């Protein structure tokens, strides 16, 4: 069934609509004409043919009317979803840009603070190192913690 839908996609909407409505209306007209044609002397012999052809066109027309209506509804839903996705992608880009700016600013602040802290250490180096000598064991513990290993007990 969906092969029809797939084929419908290849044809422009206005041609499809024209064709389907024409088939349906042709079916209706031929069926009605076929019903009364045998009452007229010259066209009476075509009444049966008109009824058969009208019946076929009517059935095919109704089927394609349904298919077309479904197709158009489907296309409308696709168009709506596409527009939603476009908006979502724009919002996503905007969010990314905001996050990028915030992260950049925060990292800059952290790096600036780091520079100040390192300068303060250098400034107070003599005072800090004057009365304090760090034992190698303390450094070993600190490095083990940095490496996330238990180290020697």
């Amino acid at each position: 069934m969906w092969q029809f839908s797939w084929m419908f996609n290849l044809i422009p909407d206005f041609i499809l609509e024209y064709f389907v409505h024409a088939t349906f209306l042709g079916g209706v007209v031929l069926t009605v004409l076929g019903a009364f044609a045998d009452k007229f002397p010259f066209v009476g012999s075509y009444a049966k043919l008109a009824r058969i052809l009208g019946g076929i066109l009517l059935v095919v027309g109704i089927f394609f009317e349904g298919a077309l209506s479904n197709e158009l509804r489907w296309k409308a839903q696709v168009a709506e979803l596409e527009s939603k996705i476009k908006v979502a992608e724009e919002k996503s880009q905007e969010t990314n840009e905001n996050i990028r700016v915030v992260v950049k600013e925060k990292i800059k602040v952290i790096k600036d603070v780091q520079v100040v802290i390192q300068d303060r250490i250098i400034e107070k180096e003599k005072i800090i190192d004057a009365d304090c000598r760090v034992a190698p064991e303390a450094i070993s513990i600190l490095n083990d913690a940095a490496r996330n290993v238990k180290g020697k007990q």
Partner: protein
Amino acid sequence: MKKLLLISLLALAGCSTVIPVKMSFPQVPEELKKSCPALKEVDPATTKLTEVLKVVTANYGQYNECQVNLDAWIQWYDSQKKIFEEVQ
């Protein structure tokens, strides 16, 4: 022969996969793709407290940067999830 061709064409149509609408996966800012570096270590030969302090404070700075990145990842995920849910 003509009917056979038409039937084959209809049958071939069944092989194609129609995905009418596709939403691409949201991109992550490049700033967030950096992994956290390993912590710096103190030179084992040093006995100066300032050398220890320099490394420890640098590691604190490193942690703060990683914290900012992690927070940004959480914010990115929450925002993108909200945007994605609005489309559904």
